[in-house]
């Protein structure tokens, strides 16, 4: 064996040696060129990338403005809420991580996967993608203890809206909820997972309440651990808002309406400020803040009593006899009516082949204007309406603010309707009939108004003829929208008739010796009743066929004036249903003077 390799020529292969030298030279050239390319030619580019690599920018949440009632009670506040975010860049195994998160939080895995899929498109890979919100301390502890094994998971502290009084102020405040795709698309200031006003003042005053997010720069390593932070832009909290609502009064009013479907609004006629706005049934707006479960949402949506509907502004009803106040005002201002004008009520009014009944079957006999208002005689107003004609009524009603929105800072307000020939032709393609005019004259038929519009109208009678914008924000200056065309004398006449109505007419339940209170009841027919059932008592009829009950009123004492409008759906007669409620409201507004109370108590 030895001989074989020993005896041979000991020379290394010549070309092999050349090959090795070529390889060494080639190696040197190759890497010199490559390093030159990376470090010198593109050095600046990569240096820039390196800087971006270590610095992440993140937004600093800003607190939403707090909402107070007029006395400084907190109606909408912010609470810290813990959410679980995932920083995708740091996450090693998304599936395993989501599985674990599902186990810790009891959120179904499908829901997490959905959240992840949705967030992937919108959230930068180094920003927390929110997987679960509003974690309890128990879940929080579980996560804190185990998150080490699942890099990328991060507890995010956020602001959560909380409404301490829940149902009580829901229709005024509305609520915030997570911004949806459409809102994110429209509004650059919103990021996925941000809350945005969806209803009520939260919606209307979104820009005031929201505030501005800040920006911070975080130096991180590749495991996502943060080393240094620098605030680039300070966050600005949203503006706080003080409302005109008096929470005590609101609660008191709500108590009166308990169990009913209806609304009571209390307005200060000179400023237009709303002191109480209650619509019932109501809902807990806290439910919406972190996403209302579908079952509860469905329940709310399908509830026949429509708890989400704000009956003060979003519902319109025939105003019934309350409309007679307007008819009077209109007749007087346009010269169709004098205080002394009388009419004879036999219990009905014949128009062609049809007889239009008065609510009092036996008739009121011969009555003048004031008496017609106090006893709410239908026949008197049938005749007035016939004299004026629908087009003048329409024109006049528009001047008094009917058929248009009040402009209150609440969304989805409805304008109501005052019909006209024109309207009917366009809408139905039919000619207007005189009979319809008679119906409108007593606030029935096509005419529709919201309780808020009625309150604004009554306020204009009280405050000297100004249609005020109903205001909910205490700092907003009073806004006069327009003046009604009515002389002071005529206004005073109508107010006095309302006082008379309280003293000896249909609104007797409001009668107070220590304050000036005027009112007008109304009963809005839900269905046209046959003669036979006309005299049936309210409680004998099925709920959904019962009339809506109105009570519009004002009260004055010691230089203070209030307008209270009550509307109870299917409540029957305004006087009997609304009366006690409104009376209770005035008791709160004008507490019985102690001296008089004692006297009253001492002498039964």
């Amino acid at each position, binding site marked *: 064996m030895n001989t074989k390799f020993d005896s041979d020529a000991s020379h290394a292969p010549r070309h*092999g040696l050349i090959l090795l030298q070529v390889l060494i030279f080639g190696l*040197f050239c190759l*890497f010199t060129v490559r390093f030159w390319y990376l*470090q010198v030619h593109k050095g600046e580019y990569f240096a820039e990338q390196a800087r971006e690599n270590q610095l992440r920018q993140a937004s600093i949440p800003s607190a939403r403005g707090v909402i107070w009632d007029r006395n400084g009670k907190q109606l909408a506040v912010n609470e810290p809420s813990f959410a679980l975010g995932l920083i995708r860049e740091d996450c090693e195994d998304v599936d395993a991580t989501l599985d674990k998160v599902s186990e810790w939080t009891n959120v179904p895995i499908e829901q997490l996967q959905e959240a992840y899929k949705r967030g992937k498109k919108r959230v930068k890979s180094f920003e927390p993608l929110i997987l679960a919100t509003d974690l309890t301390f128990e879940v929080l502890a579980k996560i804190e203890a185990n998150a080490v094994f699942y890099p990328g998971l991060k507890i995010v502290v956020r602001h959560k809206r909380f409404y301490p009084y829940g149902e009580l102020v829901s229709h005024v405040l509305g609520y915030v909820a997570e911004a949806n795709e459409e809102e994110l698309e429209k509004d650059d200031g919103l990021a996925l997972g941000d809350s945005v006003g969806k209803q009520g003042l939260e919606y209307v005053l979104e820009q005031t309440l929201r505030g501005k997010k800040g920006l911070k720069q975080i130096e991180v*390593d590749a495991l996502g651990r943060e080393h240094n932070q620098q605030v680039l832009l300070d966050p600005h909290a949203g503006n706080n808002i003080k409302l005109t609502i008096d929470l005590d009064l609101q609660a008191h009013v709500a108590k009166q309406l308990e169990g009913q479907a209806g609304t009571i609004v209390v307005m200060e006629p000179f400023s237009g400020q709303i002191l109480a706005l209650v619509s019932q049934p109501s809902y807990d707006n806290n439910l919406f803040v972190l996403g209302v479960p579908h079952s509860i949402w469905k329940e709310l949506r399908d509830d026949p009593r429509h708890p989400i509907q704000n009956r003060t502004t979003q519902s319109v009803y025939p105003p019934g006899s309350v409309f007679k106040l307007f008819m009077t005002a209109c007749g007087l201002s346009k010269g169709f009516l004098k205080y002394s004008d009388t009419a004879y009520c036999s219990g009905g009014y014949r128009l062609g082949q049809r007889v239009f009944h008065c609510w009092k079957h036996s008739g009121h006999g011969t009555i003048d204007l004031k008496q017609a208002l106090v006893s709410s005689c239908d026949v008197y107003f049938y005749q007035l309406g016939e004299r004026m004609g629908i087009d003048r009524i329409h024109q006049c009603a528009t001047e008094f603010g009917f058929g248009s929105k009040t402009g209150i800072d609440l969304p989805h307000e409805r304008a109501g309707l005052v019909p006209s020939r024109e309207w009917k032709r366009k809408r139905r393609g039919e000619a207007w009939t005189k009979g319809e005019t008679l119906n409108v004259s007593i606030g029935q038929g096509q005419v529709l108004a919201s309780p808020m519009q009625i309150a604004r109208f009554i306020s204009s009678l009280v405050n000297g003829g100004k249609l005020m914008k109903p205001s909910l924000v205490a700092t907003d200056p009073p806004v006069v929208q327009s003046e009604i065309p009515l002389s002071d004398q005529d206004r005073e006449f109508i107010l006095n008739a309302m006082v008379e109505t309280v003293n000896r007419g249909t609104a007797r339940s409001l009668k107070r010796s220590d304050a000036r209170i005027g009112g007008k009841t109304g009963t809005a027919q839900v269905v046209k009743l046959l003669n036979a059932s006309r005299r049936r008592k309210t409680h004998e009829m099925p709920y959904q066929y019962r009339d809506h009950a109105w009570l519009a009123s004002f009260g004055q004492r010691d230089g203070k004036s209030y307008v209270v409008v009550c509307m109870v759906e299917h409540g029957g007669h305004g006087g009997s249903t609304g009366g006690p409620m409104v009376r209770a409201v005035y008791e709160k507004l004008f507490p019985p003077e102690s001296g008089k109370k004692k006297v009253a108590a001492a002498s039964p």
Partner: protein
Amino acid sequence: MSPIDRRLLLHLNWPLLGFTFLLFGLGVLNLYSASGYRMGDEVSLMPYYHKQFIWGLVGMGCLVAFMLFDYRYLAHIAWPLMFATVVLLALVLVVGKTVYGAQRWLTFGGFNFQPSELAKFSVLILGALLLSKKQTRLGWLGLFQVLLVGLVPAGLIVVEPDLGSGLNVLLLLGGLILYQGLTGGVLKTLLIALPLTVPMGWFFLKPYQKQRILTLIDPSKDPLGTGYHIIQSRIAIGSGQLWGKGFLEGTQSQLRFLPEKHTDFAVAVFAEEWGFVGSIALVALFCVFLYLIFVTARGAKDRFGSFLAAGVFFYFFWQILINMGMVVGIMPVVGIPLPFVSYGGSATIVNFCLIGLVLNVSMRRFMFKK
């Protein structure tokens, strides 16, 4: 006779020894930076550079051991060694310890042993022996004979799977074959056939291996997987610019954006901190190091010695080419470390042993005895 006499020490290849230590020293220094992460979160009690230093000391002991005997004795044990290697490699597949899904280790009473490391020596020695006996360039027959010697152990290693080591073995043998030379016909045929077999080889690759090659072409396709390594590595290197960020100042590696910075991507740490100037200095050091091995191959007194040195040359050459190429983004990501610079116990010891072998050949070039 004492195993080593004074003359041998006189003829010791001091420059090669010096460059070896220099590279190793730089490697440890670089590891110090790579593992000197300021948050101090390393789980292991002993930092990488510390461990590497100890491996180096063991390696130096081995180096001396590999210098002492006359390398020509290796010719006698070439075949038994190969036989033992194949048996152990087969054993690994049966009873080996599985770590990270790969069966690479045999455990003897707490001591882990990788037969694939042994395979590097067996293939080197047997390959050098067989080729040194050939007087002419290799024809088809000779090529197959030699290839057979490498294919069996390499195949077993690839099955473990340890693509890096398998590739090491094959490339070493391929280098030896190139050193011996191929006849014109064979060379021409191979030059034409190889580009054709590459697409065919594609089908034998595992999906993740295909992915790595595709990612090399466009790293942005897989920015969180293999592409992440390439992207981050390029950013680290590139941001070093001309003069570098300075020792321990490499933000990319210090902030942990760079993965595997102590093993396969150690060069990126170096390049980030020392810049273009440092990178080229490192490449130059490796070139001188290879040149010194080349000188040994050229000056060896017999063909066996020359082939042994040439084998070691190729062993280091391929690793430098592939590792650096991978780190600078011109080669696919394959787990091949950079000699003396990357962290790794067995690799370091094997490297020192192979240098010992080259020194052995180098110092005996004047001591040739019939």
